C-alpha cells in the first residue's frame, strides 16, 4: 500500500509550473537565467561568507573586551535589503504585508494570518507521504530551475575565519555553492529558502553539514525573530530538494513560550528537554560546548528519524540557541482518512510554522473564528501519541548517544553502526543501500542477543513500531514484503530502549557518575 494525500503545492518560484507541464518541458539552453548548467557560466551573485563560531554563546561580551553589539547585523541587513529590492521589483505573487494578521487572544498567543492569495492558481497534486526519504527526481521542480533574480546571495563559511562580502561573485560549481533564494509565496516578510549545495541535487534529507549551515545562518543573522524551519517529506515538504525556510516575525511563537522539562544533558553539553503543555509533543535542544556540538546532536536525531521513516519538522529559534524537533503523523492520518473533515476543510497544512503556532489561514471564516481551541485541536492531530512519542524518543536518544561516542553520520556509513546490541541480520529483498534510499520495498529485521542467527524465526516474538505510532507484538511466521521500511526489534531489546525506564537510565546512569567525585 502506498499512502498519498492530495494538496495544493506551494509555488515557491515564478518558474515553478504544474508538474505535468514541468515534465514536458525540455531542460537546457533555457535562456531564462536559471541555476542549471545552461545558465551558470558567467553568472554572478553576491556572496556572504560567515565566520565560523567556536563558542555557541555570542552574548557574553565583557565591557573590557570592547566588543559592543556588532556594528551592523550584516547578514540581517543584506537579507532585508535584497528582499525589499525583490519586493519593489514585483517578484512576489502578493504583498504579504497587506495580509491581515493578529495574535489570537488567549493563553497561548497563537498567531493567525489571513492569506487568500497563497494557494490560488495551482491544481492539487498528489504527494506520497509514507516515505520520508525519497530519491531526487530531476524531472520534478527543483531549485536549480529558479531564476537568478530570485536568488539573493550565496552563503558559505569563510576560509580565513572572517566575515566576507563580495557584492558580485561568480557562481563556481566546483565550490558547491549554497544559496539563499526568495519564496515567491511568502508567509511573512523576508521569507527565504536556504538551499545547501544547490547544484548537488540533494534530496530533502538532513545531514550534519547542511544542518550546521542552517544553524550558522540563524546565528549569523543574530535576530531572535528570524527563525529557520525544516519540513521532512511526509511532514509537508512539497519539494524534494534539500531546503530550509526562514522569515521574520517579531512575535514570540507559542512553542517558544511552552514550558519544558529537562530529560538529559549529553556529553557535549547539549541539553535535551521535552515540551510540556503544548499540543504537539516534541524535544528541545539547547546549549552544547560549541555550535557544532548542538548541530551534530540535532542532526543525528533528525537522521535517526528519517532513517526510521518518521516524518518530522524542525524549528531553529533564538538565533540558533534553541532547536525544536517535532515528529508528526498528520499526513499519514490524513492519507488513512483519520482526520476529521472540519479540520481538512480549513486546508491548513501543519508544517513547521503551523506547529510552532503561526497559522496561515486561507478562508476568512477560519481567520475570524480563529481561537486557542481551534488551533489546539488541529495541532493535537499532528502530534504523536504519548506512547509513540516515548518510543520515538528512545530511538532518538540511542542515536544521540552513539553520536556522542564519536561515530560519524550513521546514514553515510551504515556499517559502522555501534554494535551495542549484537547486530543484525538484514533480511532484505535487495541491497543494504535500499534501506537508505528507500527505493526498494524492504523489510529490516534486527535481532537481539537472544536471537541467534539461524534460529528459526517462528521461535521468536517480534515487536515493531508502525508509523501511526502503534507498538505491535507479533509472532513472526513469515517474512513479508511491505510498502515501507519498518525497523523491527526483539521484545527484550525494546524494553531496554523504549519508554520511561530507558529514559531514566539514560538520564541518571550517565549523569550520576561524575557527581560522585566531589
Amino acid at each position, binding site marked *: 500500500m502506498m499512502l498519498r494525500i492530495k494538496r495544493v503545492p506551494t509555488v515557491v518560484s515564478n518558474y515553478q509550473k504544474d508538474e505535468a507541464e514541468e515534465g514536458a518541458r525540455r531542460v537546457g539552453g533555457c535562456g531564462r537565467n536559471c541555476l542549471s548548467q545552461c545558465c551558470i557560466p558567467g553568472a554572478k551573485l553576491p556572496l556572504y561568507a560567515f565566520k565560523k563560531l567556536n563558542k555557541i554563546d555570542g552574548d557574553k561580551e565583557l565591557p573590557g573586551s570592547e566588543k559592543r553589539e556588532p556594528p*551592523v547585523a550584516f547578514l540581517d541587513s543584506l537579507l532585508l535589503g*535584497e528582499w525589499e529590492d525583490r519586493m519593489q521589483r514585483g517578484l512576489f505573487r502578493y504583498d504579504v504585508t497587506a495580509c*491581515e*494578521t493578529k495574535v489570537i487572544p488567549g493563553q497561548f498567543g497563537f498567531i493567525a494570518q489571513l492569506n487568500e492569495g497563497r494557494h490560488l492558481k495551482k491544481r492539487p497534486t498528489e504527494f506520497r507521504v509514507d516515505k520520508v526519504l525519497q530519491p531526487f527526481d530531476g524531472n520534478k521542480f527543483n531549485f536549480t530551475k529558479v531564476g537568478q533574480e530570485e536568488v539573493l546571495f550565496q552563503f558559505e563559511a569563510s576560509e580565513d575565519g572572517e566575515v566576507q562580502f563580495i557584492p558580485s561573485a561568480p557562481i563556481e560549481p566546483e565550490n558547491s555553492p549554497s544559496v539563499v533564494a526568495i519564496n515567491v509565496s511568502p508567509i511573512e516578510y523576508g521569507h527565504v529558502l536556504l538551499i545547501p549545495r544547490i547544484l548537488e541535487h540533494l534530496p530533502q534529507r538532513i545531514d550534519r553539514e547542511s544542518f550546521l549551515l542552517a544553524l550558522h545562518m540563524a546565528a549569523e543573522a543574530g535576530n531572535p525573530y528570524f527563525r529557520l524551519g525544516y519540513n521532512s517529506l511526509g511532514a509537508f515538504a512539497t519539494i524534494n530538494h534539500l531546503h530550509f525556510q526562514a522569515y521574520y516575525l517579531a512575535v*514570540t511563537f507559542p512553542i517558544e*513560550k511552552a514550558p519544558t522539562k529537562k530529560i538529559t544533558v549529553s556529553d557535549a553539553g547539549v541539553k535535551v528537554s521535552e515540551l510540556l503543555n503544548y499540543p504537539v509533543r516534541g524535544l528541545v535542544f539547547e*546549549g552544547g560546548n560549541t555550535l557544532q556540538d548542538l548541530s551534530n546532536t540535532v542532526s543525528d536525531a533528525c537522521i535517526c528519524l528519517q532513517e526510521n521513516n518518521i516524518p518530522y519538522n524542525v524549528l531553529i529559534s533564538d538565533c540558533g540557541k*534553541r532547536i525544536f524537533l517535532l515528529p508528526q503523523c498528520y499526513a499519514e492520518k490524513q492519507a488513512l482518512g483519520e482526520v476529521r473533515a472540519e479540520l481538512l476543510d480549513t486546508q491548513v497544512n501543519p508544517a513547521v510554522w503551523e506547529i510552532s503556532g503561526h497559522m496561515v489561514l486561507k478562508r476568512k471564516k477560519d481567520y475570524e473564528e480563529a481561537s486557542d481551541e481551534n488551533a489546539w485541536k488541529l495541532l493535537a492531530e499532528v502530534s504523536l501519541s504519548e506512547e509513540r512519542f516515548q518510543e520515538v524518543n528512545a530511538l532518538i536518544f540511542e542515536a544521540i548517544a552513539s553520536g556522542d561516542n564519536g561515530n560519524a553520520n550513521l546514514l553515510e556509513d551504515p556499517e559502522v553502526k555501534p554494535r551495542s546490541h549484537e547486530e543484525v541480520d538484514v533480511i532484505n529483498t535487495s541491497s543494504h543501500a535500499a534501506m537508505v534510499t528507500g527505493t526498494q520495498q524492504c523489510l529490516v529485521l534486527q535481532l537481539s542477543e537472544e536471537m541467534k542467527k539461524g534460529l528459526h524465526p517462528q521461535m521468536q516474538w517480534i515487536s515493531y513500531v508502525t508509523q501511526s505510532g502503534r507498538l505491535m507484538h507479533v509472532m513472526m511466521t513469515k517474512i513479508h514484503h511491505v510498502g515501507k521500511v519498518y525497523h523491527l526489534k526483539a521484545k527484550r531489546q525494546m524494553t531496554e530502549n523504549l519508554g*520511561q525506564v530507558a529514559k531514566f537510565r539514560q538520564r541518571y546512569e550517565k549523569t550520576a557518575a561524575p557527581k560522585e567525585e566531589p
Partner: protein
Amino acid sequence: MESELGLIEQSFNSRYSLWVQEALSELPDSFTITDPCLSGHPIVFASKGFLKMLGYSKSEVIGRNGRVFQGPGTCRRSVMEIREAIREERAIQINLLNYRKDGTPFWMLFHMCPVFNKEDGRVTHFVGVQIPISRKPRRSGRNGVNLCEEESRMNDIFYGSCRKEVCSDSLVELGRVLSLESALDDADDRGLEIEESCEASDVEKTRAATAINNILSVLTHYSELTGRLVCGKRCSLSGVGLLSSSLNISLGRIKQSFVLTDPHLPDMPIVYASDAFFKLTGYARHEVLGRNCRFLRGVDTDSSMIYRIKESIQNEKACTVRILNYRKDKSSFWNLLHISPVRNASGKIAYFVGVQMEEGCKNQVGHGLSPEMRQLSAVGAVRIAVRSLSMGAGPSKS
C-alpha cells in the same frame, strides 16, 4: 559615544531633575533603570548595590543592554519571557542566572516593571531589581548549566507517568519491569537531589516588590520637581500618534537615518526619527517630533522633487528622489531620499518611512553593502517592526 552618554543623562535628568541620582544612590538595593526610547534599550542608571554585586564599575554598565550579564547557563526561555514583558509593557518577576564580571554565575530574582508617563501613558523607563537568591542549591549542576526552575516541581509528574507507562507496556516482561521499578524507587530521592533548585522564597519576592515601590516613589517624587510626572501604573491610554515603547525599541536598533510619518494625522507629522537622523540634520528629538518634514527644505530645494514626493504619497507607492536638504546650521546636503508606505498588521498603511542618505558621504562601516541596499534594509526592518508590533492580542482594526 559622547553623544550617546549625553542622551542617557538627558533621558534621566531632564525627567527627574539632577538630584534624583543622589536620592536613588541612597537606596540599598541592587537595581538598574533602562530607557526603551534610546537605541539599544540601554541602562541609564545602576545602583551601587548592583555594581557591587556584579563587580562592574559604573562606566562599564551605563549605556549597555542588560543582556550582557547573561551567559551560557542562563535559561533561554526566561530571557524570552523578559523580552515578552518588555514588549507588552508589563511587570515580570522571574528567577534568572546572571554572570558577574569575573564570569561567576549566580541566581537572582529579577523583578522588572515599567514606569509610565502620567500624561500620555507611554513607558518612559523600566526599573529592574535584582535580589540574589540566598538559599544554596543542594547540589551544583554541571558547570552551572541546565538550571531550569520548573524541574523539581515536575519530578513527581515525571515518575508518576513513568511507572504507569512501564506497567502498561507489556505483560510478558512484567517480572523484569517490577524489578526495574523498585530500582527506580531507590533512585527517586537521589534524582531529586541532583536537580538544581533555584526557586526564590517569599521573603525574597517581597523584598523585590518593596524595593520596586521605594524606587518608584523616589522617581515619582522627583518627576514632580520637573513637572513631567511618572507613575507605576498606566494612567491614561496611549495618546494618538505615539509609538509604543516596544516599537521604539525595535526601531532603535536600525542604524540608518530615517523618519516615520503618520499620514492619518493632520499635516503628516514625524512620529519617530532615528538617532542617525539627528546626527545627519543636527536637530534634536524634541525639535523634530510632531513636525512635518518640510523643515528640511530650503531656498534652493527643487519644487519638482517635492511634487514627486507628494505624488508617491498620494499613490501609496515607493519612490526615490535626490533632493537638496538643509541642516539645522543652514548648511545644505544632497539627500537621496527613499520613501515607502508601511503597513500595519491589518494590512493597512499606517506610516510612511523616509530613509535619508547623504550623497557622497562615506557612510559608516558597511562591509561593502551598497548604500542603496542599506537603505532598503532599513525599510525592511521598519516594515517588520511596524507589522509585528501592531499585532497585539485583541480585535484587529479593520
